[in-house]
């Protein structure tokens, strides 16, 4: 018996993967989506999105993904809720190996793997996840009503989530290792104008203390070398992203941080394998960029599959 061969496998069900899937279905490709968690990816961790065009009032991450999902479901959404753990090549075919042992064959693969929040890697962090250490303000913020929390980071996410947390908490210490923020000016303006947010610049968190839950953090001022403790019950960490590409090492070219290198058609160093979204090596990571790349990857994959079939 010959095993089923898909035209295309899309790995990852965030905005990039769902857009790639949408374009593939409209090209009448036989396509399968692989997702290890819930459909949506990091967007589900976002409370309110104000920079996705077409939503003048903004939209919640969950609602935006529901709309994406609805659009592909209309065309037929086939999902394997499983984790991709290996990618191999067999002649013209690519094989995606899943954690449960299943092997999916296809002519082409699109990697829309997204990224996960980076950890600080300091004492107390891992042990107190879910007990005050958080990477998702929208999930966990309401547990800190009228309490004092710290936010670590200086990019868009750190500032946006600090602002979100002020709805619940008494006070936010926004701790950033430099003296200026990377975040866009509109967010900086809002943060500086918010009386609940106190900036602690040129400083890093060295340790998180607490037994059953977060009780205090040890902060070091990098300019003066002085260390001090802050009583907080929550530490929200937004210091950037790490790609989930360990399983691809040696299979295709990655940059020094593990992000996937692609050409202008979103093709990786492995012919017929494309990548899009936050897992790609680039300067900017935004939902709208992920979607754009998803479309490019899908159209490129379609061309690649046509060439193979016509050969």
């Amino acid at each position: 018996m010959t095993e089923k061969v898909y035209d295309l496998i899309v790995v990852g069900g965030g905005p990039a993967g769902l857009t790639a899937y949408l374009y593939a279905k409209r090209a009448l490709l036989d396509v399968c989506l692989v997702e290890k968690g819930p459909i949506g990816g990091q967007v589900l961790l976002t409370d309110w999105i104000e920079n996705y065009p077409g939503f003048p009032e903004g939209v919640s991450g969950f609602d935006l993904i529901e709309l994406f999902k609805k659009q592909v479901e209309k065309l037929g959404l086939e999902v394997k809720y499983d984790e991709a753990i290996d990618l191999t090549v067999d002649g013209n075919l690519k094989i995606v190996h899943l954690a449960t042992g299943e092997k999916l064959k296809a002519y082409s693969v699109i990697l829309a793997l997204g990224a996960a929040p980076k950890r600080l890697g300091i004492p107390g962090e891992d042990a107190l996840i879910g007990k005050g250490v958080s990477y998702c303000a929208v999930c966990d913020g309401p547990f800190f009503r009228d309490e004092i929390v710290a936010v670590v980071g200086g990019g868009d996410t750190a500032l946006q989530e600090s602002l979100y947390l002020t709805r619940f908490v008494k006070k936010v210490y926004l701790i950033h290792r430099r003296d200026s923020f990377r975040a866009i000016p509109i967010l900086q303006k809002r943060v500086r104008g918010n009386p609940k947010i106190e900036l602690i610049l040129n400083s890093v968190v060295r340790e998180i203390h607490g037994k059953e839950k977060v009780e205090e953090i040890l902060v070091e001022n990098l300019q003066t070398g002085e260390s001090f403790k802050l009583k907080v019950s929550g530490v929200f960490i937004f210091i950037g992203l790490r790609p989930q590409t360990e399983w691809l090492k040696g299979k295709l070219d990655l940059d020094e941080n593990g992000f996937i290198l692609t050409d202008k058609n979103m093709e990786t160093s492995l012919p017929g394998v494309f990548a899009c979204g936050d897992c790609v090596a680039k300067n900017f990571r935004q939902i709208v960029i992920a979607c754009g790349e998803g479309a490019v990857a899908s159209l490129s994959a379609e061309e690649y599959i046509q060439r193979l079939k016509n050969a």
Partner: protein
Amino acid sequence: MACKVTDQDFEKEVLQSPIPVLVDFWAAWCGPCRAIAPIIDELAEELSGKVKVCKMNVDENPITPAKYGIRAIPTLIIFKDSQPVETIVGAVSKATILNALNKVM
């Protein structure tokens, strides 16, 4: 479907259950919670008779989440013989939840 439990019937439904219980602590404002809801319902069907699968809304039921020190959702806790034996924080895959359940079944 997963059954709903409250602060009032938690003792009876979860702690006194003769079989292991998976409790999904969730809230309507939490995207990842809503996203894993279908997985939780699937598990309720597939494990029927072996594991009881319940959901507790943390907004409507503040006492039990506080008792178990929940500071993040979704949090899944597996109870066996009235004790919490496994805790999973965050939206994880069905396989991860099944692995944890297999240890207690």
